[in-house]
């Protein structure tokens, strides 16, 4: 803060200077893409005859929705039939965030706050499900097997959150760092080989080699991490659900969730 400026003056002048990382804007763009896509599909599917066979683009969309519904039922059990939408939204956001680095803009996953929020989403979902199905028995897990274990249980409660967050962040940042090293090294090498081109020499061979590695580090790694994240979230949530499938309450909930 400069000397000749009072605190109020300083605050008023710099009120709109939010220090927001560029990755957050990338994340907002990804969210925007998903929202527009979903609204467009909702409008298209509303004006369709449900008795007719879907064709073209809509058949792909229907296949996707069916796939995620089946995924949720397979992984979590029949009580969670309505969770397909949650899993699909997570999967879309994760995969788009991972491949967003291909556009040249910073990938949202390389900013720690965003994997942490995704981890928090599934963490809150796991505990909310546990409270919903186990009611007061939920608190029994913290004093299991003896009340002496309370501090240990309170610590180990955060393990899934940490592991989900660091897995995403570590994968994204590792790919990012390796790609940056590769770009720097290949640019220097190509500049040496094509030195007759001047400063443009570095741009000749570099994109051909790095493109292949982008396929691995962004597309393949992003796909695998998306699969792992949604599988782990589903398994964690499924563990908290009711165990008896033939329970009357279960069928009631699954019917409610299916709508």
């Amino acid at each position: 803060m400069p000397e000749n400026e009072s605190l109020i003056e300083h605050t008023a002048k710099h009120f709109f200077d939010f220090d927001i990382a560029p990755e957050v804007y990338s994340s907002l763009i990804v969210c925007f893409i998903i929202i527009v896509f979903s609204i467009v599909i909702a409008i298209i599917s509303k004006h369709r005859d449900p008795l007719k066979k879907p064709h073209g683009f809509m058949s792909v969309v229907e296949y996707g929705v069916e796939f995620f519904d089946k995924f949720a039922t397979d992984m979590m059990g029949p009580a969670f039939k309505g969770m397909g939408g949650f899993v699909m939204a997570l999967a879309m956001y994760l995969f788009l965030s991972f491949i967003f680095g291909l556009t040249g803009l910073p990938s949202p996953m390389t900013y720690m706050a965003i994997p942490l929020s995704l981890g928090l989403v599934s963490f809150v979902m796991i505990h909310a499900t546990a409270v919903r199905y186990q009611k007061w028995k939920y608190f029994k897990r913290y004093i299991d097997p003896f009340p002496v274990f309370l501090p240990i249980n309170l610590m180990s409660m955060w393990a899934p959150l940490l592991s989900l967050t660091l897995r995403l962040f570590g994968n994204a940042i590792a790919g990012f760092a390796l790609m940056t090293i590769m770009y720097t090294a290949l640019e220097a090498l190509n500049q040496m080989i094509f030195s007759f081109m001047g400063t443009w020499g570095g741009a000749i061979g570099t994109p051909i080699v790095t493109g292949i590695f982008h396929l691995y580090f962004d597309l393949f790694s992003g796909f695998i991490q998306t699969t792992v994240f949604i599988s782990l979230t589903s398994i964690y949530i499924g563990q908290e659900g009711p165990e008896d499938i033939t329970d009357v309450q279960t069928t009631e909930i699954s019917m409610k969730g299916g709508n």
Partner: protein
Amino acid sequence: MGEAGYYIAAAIAILGVMPSALGEGMVCAKAMEGISRNPEAYSKIRSTMILGCALVETTAIYSLLISILCLFVH
């Protein structure tokens, strides 16, 4: 020492990927054994194997993360 210490720390931290690689090899070997015994279960075993590999990889990713932090964040 100062600067060199960070590089040495990064080099030590990256040693953690060694057991992870061994574990991944074991996952693949066992999956192949399973496939050769029961070829019909190929698609199921493959998807489970990829999931298991990614889970095993986690520790390697942690070491890589720590090593990158040692290198760049100081």
